């Protein structure tokens, strides 16, 4: 990995400022640019640093570095893929200055939906996936509409949404996990659904591929679309955005719909990986996703942050979990370490030089 070259950044054309924080600000060349770039790519540096540290402190067995060993890296990306996909949706929400606490419960609802539709209703994979994604999107859009139309804070709306989604999931499943058996018979799901727990060429887990594909897609969306400019504008200054013609309500609803959609997708993956749709699954995932976004350098105040940061943040959390486990660090100590990392990432944002 070569750190991004600061000079090259300075040479970037100054016209058409990219839709990001303080686009018009120009630091003097030389070391300020270096400092600025360090903070801009903070989570990426953090990811590289944690990656290197993990290699260094990983236990070694038979001369083989376990952290880098067969399948361990694939395990890491697989393990973070659900949180990562949720975090991608969460990034949009947080960029407009909102929060979505319902995603973990929507994941549980989608997992139950996937299992129930295929096993109990005997539906095929495609209709099941489409219906479940539609449910997630509609759920998110409804929350977004309540936020945008009635003007209730998203924290409250999605807190209510969390309860509602959990309740619906429990009613739908009868309170118990719905096991998924594979086969062609009645009460069996199509065999192909189990591909979600497999890997491509036995190396790259399918959920990881989906996470990376969605991450890159979202990165491109956030980089170059009018929608992305609207998102940043609303997060930066909603009033100014409205006055300059940004369709604030529509963007709000869309953002929450995206979050619901991706949470539902994560739920489908969850059901495929565990061969079960349990209504209680995914509890607390919203907090892990928020942690990934925050470590990625996106401000909870909205208007500033990046998708690349979130992806890096999710991977960083995954590597951290993995290396702590490989070194047999006590489970309670692991929680404390993760807490410290989140605070450290947020503190770094505060240290970032402010220019006025």
């Amino acid at each position: 990995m070569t750190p991004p070259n600061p000079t090259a950044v300075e040479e970037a054309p100054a016209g058409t400022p990219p839709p990001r924080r303080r686009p018009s600000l120009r630091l003097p060349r030389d070391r300020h640019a270096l400092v600025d770039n360090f903070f801009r790519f903070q989570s990426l540096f953090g990811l590289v640093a944690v990656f290197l540290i993990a290699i260094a402190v990983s236990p070694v067995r038979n001369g083989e570095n376990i952290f880098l060993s067969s399948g361990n890296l694939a395990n890491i990306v697989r393990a973070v893929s659900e949180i990562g996909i949720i975090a991608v949706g969460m990034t949009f929400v947080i960029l407009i200055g909102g929060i979505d606490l319902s995603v973990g419960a929507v994941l549980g609802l989608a997992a139950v939906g996937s299992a129930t539709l295929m096993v109990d209703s005997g539906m095929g994979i495609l209709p099941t996936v489409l219906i479940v994604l539609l449910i997630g999107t509609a759920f998110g859009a409804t929350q977004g509409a309540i936020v945008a139309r009635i003007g209730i804070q998203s924290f409250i709306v999605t807190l209510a949404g969390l309860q509602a989604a959990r309740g619906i999931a429990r009613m739908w499943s009868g309170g118990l996990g719905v096991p998924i058996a594979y086969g062609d018979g009645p009460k069996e799901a199509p065999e192909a659904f189990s591909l979600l727990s497999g890997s491509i060429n036995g190396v790259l887990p399918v959920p990881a591929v989906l996470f990376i594909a969605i991450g890159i897609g979202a990165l491109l969306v956030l980089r170059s679309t009018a929608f992305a400019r609207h998102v940043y504008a609303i997060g930066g200054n909603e009033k100014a955005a409205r006055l300059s013609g940004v369709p604030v309500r529509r963007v709000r609803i869309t953002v929450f719909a995206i979050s619901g959609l991706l949470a539902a997708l994560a739920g489908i993956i969850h059901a495929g990986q565990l061969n079960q749709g349990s209504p209680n699954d995914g509890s607390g995932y919203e907090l892990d996703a928020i942690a990934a976004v925050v470590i990625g350098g996106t401000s909870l105040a909205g208007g500033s942050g990046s998708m690349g940061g979130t992806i890096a943040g999710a991977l960083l959390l995954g590597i951290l979990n993995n290396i702590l486990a490989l070194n047999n660090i006590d489970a309670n100590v692991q929680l404390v370490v993760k807490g410290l990392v989140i605070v450290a990432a947020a503190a770094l944002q505060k240290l970032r030089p402010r220019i006025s």
Partner: protein
Amino acid sequence: MRYARRAVAVLALTVLATTTACSVEKAGDGNGGTDAAAECGSGKEFLIGMSQANNAEPYRQVMNDDVSNAAKDVPGFKVVVSDAAQDNSKQVADVENFISQGINLLIISPNEAKPLTAVVKKAYDQGIPVIVLDRKVEGDAYTAFIGGDNVAIGKAAGEYYAKTLLPQGGKVVEISGLPGSTPAAERAQGFREGVASNPQIQIVASQTAEWLREKGQSVMDAMLKANPDINAVYAHNDPMAEGAYLAAKAAGKESTIKFTGIDALPVPSGGIKAVEQGRLQATFQYPTGGREAIDMAKKILVDCQKDVPKTTTLGTTQITKDNAAQVYTQLGGKQ
């Protein structure tokens, strides 16, 4: 373009990570899997992975302690414990990390059967002996299962009621565990089988308190109003029995009603202490199987025993004031 640069950087990292994974996977093909099944024998070092479903439940914490303490007495045994915090996905990742670490034996107390079956099979297929504790996994891709028998425990409690606690008969209320959970159903069934020998005993009410002490209290409040002449309370676990005791005490009836629980955890807040201190008449041990798992691990790893029993069902111990202090010490409880 800054965005392009960032995207490229992230992409590059992803590609780097995945290509590393690819190349390492190929390199590892030669010896992958074979070193997992370490040769048994004495005088060797063995790493045992203990995958726990949820450390936050006292019963499971005691199980971890039992495993760790028993392993201290076996030279060469080192135990590492992971906590899935009631998350199936986390427990799958925990077991995968154990496999990466090259553990010599896996002890797992699964959060749920179905989601963990595949990863347990993965470990077992790589030659790692797997001992499943308390809750089962599906299929038979594990070495051994060790667990308690809730029907037998309920029956032991019922027989104690029939012969010792209420030989003249009386009115009993039942406070049951979470509806739909297997232990609650089995503890209820066993109890009815046990008291059947004494027709003078009537079960006048049965309410759920979902395993919780605070709910045991509120349920007992209501049942005392409906049945003021209760003789005894059969609770499916100790915390609910303690809650019921508190409710009776508030109504001034704690000395006329007898309380029994199940679980008998050797911890200061557990049922054994409650019996010793006179709040409960009796409790029945639901064994963790932790010590038995290490005994079996020793047979497999140190003694090179090939055939261990596929299923071990543990008995229960009845705890009354006579043996409470002794059992507490015997189970390694903290004073």
